[in-house]
């Protein structure tokens, strides 16, 4: 089943319809956000306290939104599965946050950040959202600095910048290799200020199990208290999902262990469209897998490619030798060779595929030949070890803890790993999903990164959505809603609550032989193998056949010890894996249907000299999947992408 949100234009690509499908105003692109804000509905300060806003997730998007809405006077309830809001996985982001400040006087501008993000996303992101993102990027830095985020500074006391992949300017603000941590502490501090003020109530160790939709509108959630096991309802006037990405469908990823798709998947099953799930980002520089017991992969920040050079031996027979014994002329600095103008700072999808290509060619290094070198010898010679330590000290230390190797003395070994997911719930220009009242922020939505996200753009998007966009757009929805229409004990809530309880009972009653982790691992291997860095029609068809079988086995053979009314980590994980087993099918289906290559979605059948070959004529749309009650037959809604300012072109970093 396919429907189109608006007419697929005759002159496509590069046509523009009269009514933008994202609901943004029909004005020239640079004026859209200003116009939209100016014509947005407002709620008067005295009335704001009558509205209850539910925020799920406390990462950059969630904390920023909860704090900002509370400052405006709304009542906010914020939920997170961690034991403290400050532990959400935004904390682990390392390298930096982009902003078009042009402090370096190197030719940056809002336009350039916007254009590079669209190009970086391989012309599969929505132009209006990206233009707005670039515009508010500068405000984010102001806000964070005022909150006390200790960004790196020059000796004169002003802010420092560095460069990231897919760009030729230095626009990235950073705090050593802990930028995400420092930004989240800023947002968490803002949240604490509002908790102290009494207008945010925080619910840590509380997991959303379902969305409650009443008369077509999202009006609350059902949650489980992870300590007592109590399942309860929280009614609100709007629901904001800020629950991150679905990278853990691959089992091994750089995500935290608890990251999951449950909130967005449950919302999907209640009617929200899931857009572009096949756009997953495989990050080129992660520490390689060392064994079957491995529970997660660790990222080595992209910022390292400012000073590190990627190489493999030119000859297969050199792969087993110590790196230092391989002379310069026998090394293949493959990124510099293939992409001379961007070199080691080629975008992530391209750098990952290049690494895979070298390893597939038998020239990988380390265990199993699944690794490439990231070498700092030149930079250390040029700048000295102290300078490198100041820039990346914590990353080198982390590398040593995990591998036992000193990267000041020998090159790092790295390999691509799942890191970020560009797909997510479909949202309009207000960041509202197709279910009225349900707003989706940060990594959980689909809108800004197209088929590939550029480095240092995730933090920018999370904070843009939370601090500046949703606080301006939410009143567009709320103004038409009578506040407090539903209570926690309304019958609509009780029914969803009971269904959540029944599901917990069902999981606990299977009492089979296989652990939750064994299912998760098998699912992850299947998805990585068939829907990872390179995908084929045949492989995806195999995955689509296997997934329902695996799901069936889960529900007949999983073993979840303990009970539902205690702190039960196996039960938590079982619920998440059950949802990943369903979601994985949509991921593979989207990849199967998208018969082109773009960004992180590489279909082996569609390539040109090893590079992704897009098909704009047939596929320049957002695939927004609708749940029909049958996992095997979701309905595809297409939002054709419209570009006013940029024009489709072949993405080149050569």
């Amino acid at each position: 089943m396919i429907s189109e949100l608006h007419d697929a234009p005759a002159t496509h690509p590069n046509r523009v319809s009269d009514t933008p499908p994202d609901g943004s105003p029909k004005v020239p692109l640079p004026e859209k956000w200003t116009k939209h804000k100016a014509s947005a509905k407002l709620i008067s300060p005295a009335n704001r306290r009558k509205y209850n806003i539910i925020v799920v997730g406390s990462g950059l998007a969630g904390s920023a939104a909860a704090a900002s809405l509370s400052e405006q006077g709304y009542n906010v309830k914020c939920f997170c599965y961690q034991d403290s809001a400050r532990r959400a996985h935004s904390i682990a982001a390392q390298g930096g946050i982009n902003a078009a400040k042009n402090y370096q006087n190197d030719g940056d501008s809002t336009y350039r950040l916007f254009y590079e993000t669209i190009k970086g996303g391989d012309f599969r992101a929505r132009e209006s959202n990206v233009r707005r993102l670039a515009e508010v990027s500068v405000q984010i830095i102001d806000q964070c600095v005022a909150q006390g985020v200790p960004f790196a500074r020059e000796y004169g006391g002003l802010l420092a910048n560095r460069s990231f992949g897919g760009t030729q300017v230095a626009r990235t603000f950073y705090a050593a290799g802990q930028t995400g941590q420092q930004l989240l502490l800023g947002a968490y501090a803002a949240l604490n200020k509002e908790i102290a003020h009494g207008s945010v109530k925080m619910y840590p160790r509380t997991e959303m199990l379902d969305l409650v939709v009443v008369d077509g509108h999202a009006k609350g959630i059902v949650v489980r208290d992870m300590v007592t096991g109590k399942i309860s309802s929280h009614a609100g006037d709007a629901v904001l999902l800020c629950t991150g990405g679905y990278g853990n469908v691959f089992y091994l990823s750089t995500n935290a262990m608890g990251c999951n798709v449950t909130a967005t998947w449950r919302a999907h099953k209640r009617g929200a469209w899931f857009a572009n799930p096949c756009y997953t980002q495989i990050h080129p520089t992660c520490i390689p897998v060392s064994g079957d017991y491995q529970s997660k992969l660790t990222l080595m920040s992209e910022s390292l490619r400012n000073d590190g050079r990627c190489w493999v031996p030119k000859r297969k027979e050199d792969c087993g030798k110590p790196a230092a014994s391989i002379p310069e002329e026998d090394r293949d600095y493959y990124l510099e060779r293939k992409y001379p103008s961007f070199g080691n700072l080629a975008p992530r999808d391209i750098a990952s595929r290049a690494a895979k290509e070298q390893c597939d060619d038998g020239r990988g290094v380390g265990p199993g030949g699944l690794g490439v070198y990231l070498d700092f010898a030149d930079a250390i010679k040029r700048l000295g070890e102290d300078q490198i330590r100041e820039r990346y000290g914590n990353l080198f230390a982390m590398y040593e803890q995990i591998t036992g190797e000193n990267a000041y003395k020998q090159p790092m070994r790295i390999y691509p790993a799942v890191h970020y997911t560009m797909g997510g719930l479909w949202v309009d220009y207000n960041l509202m999903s197709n279910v009225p009242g349900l707003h989706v922020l940060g990594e959980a939505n689909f809108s800004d990164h197209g088929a590939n996200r550029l480095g240092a753009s995730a933090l920018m998007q999370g904070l843009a959505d939370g601090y500046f966009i949703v606080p301006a757009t939410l009143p567009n929805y709320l103004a038409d809603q009578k506040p407090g229409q539903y209570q926690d004990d309304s019958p609509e809530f009780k029914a969803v609550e009971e269904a959540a309880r029944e599901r917990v009972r069902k999981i606990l009653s299977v009492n089979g032989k296989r652990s939750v982790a064994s299912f998760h691992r098998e699912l992850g291997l299947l998805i990585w193998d068939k829907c990872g860095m390179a995908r084929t029609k045949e492989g995806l068809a195999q995955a689509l056949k296997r997934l329902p079988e695996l799901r069936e086995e889960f529900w007949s053979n999983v073993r979840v010890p303990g009970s539902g009314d205690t702190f039960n980590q196996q039960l938590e994980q079982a619920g998440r894996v059950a949802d990943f087993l369903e979601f994985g099918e949509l991921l593979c289906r989207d990849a199967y249907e998208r018969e082109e290559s773009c960004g992180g979605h590489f279909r082996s059948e569609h390539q040109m000299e090893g590079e992704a070959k897009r098909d704009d004529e047939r596929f320049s749309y957002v695939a927004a999947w609708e749940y029909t009650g049958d996992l095997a037959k979701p309905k595809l809604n297409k939002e054709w992408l419209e570009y006013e300012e940029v024009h489709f072109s072949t993405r080149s970093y050569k």
Partner: protein
Amino acid sequence: MADSKSSLDLTLNVWRQTGPDAPGRFETYAAKAIPETASFLEMMDIVNEDIIAKGGEPVAFDHDCREGICGMCSMVINGMPHGPKRGVTTCQLHMRSFRSGDTIWIEPFRATAFPIVRDLAVDRSAFDRIQQAGGYITVRTGSAPEANSVPVPKPDADASFMAAACIGCGACVAACKNASAMLFVAAKVAHFNHLPQGRPEADSRALGMVRAMDEQGFGNCTNQYECEAVCPKTIDAEYIRQLNRDYRNAAAKEVVGI
């Protein structure tokens, strides 16, 4: 794929406790054929899989990012919060730091202010409540001045950053014989008080957070600095001296009413 150069056989004595008021006890488990490249938490995963396979209930422990930054993992390992290696969290501790045949004692972070949730997981929400008592700069979204309009001398920015590296794990409390949260509070106060943006509220911050620490049931600091020795982010105990100074000055001003 497997590249475990060697593996370890270990005996684990693990603290088991079903809830905050339930009695606890050590249980002994054999951990066999643990790859030395596995992390400590991956070793716990392997042991838990074995417990599940035998029909038992796995050991509960807090963890999330497993890369040393979220601060969720805890555990006292052989008497040391986060184990024997300096400057790392439990999740970053790898089994190559142990030898085959070792007996390992694994306990929760113990403190009155950190009630046990289950087994090795404890409730550290007292830390959140301390930060709600002043661990922020009052700035509304949208009201911030241009970022470069307030230069921050690099030494101040660096001192702030070094303090802000605190991950709020609570190892400092677990290591302290008085279960004092002084290093944590000192780091949180210093993060803001070292910056010009944080100065307007420096006094109320120091007073508010120290008093909240006392209210939450943490003990007093007697300057032994076990906290510094076990801190996975190697936060400098010098910040404690600075907090004492900030608190003293603020308290004196409060008394004389300025």
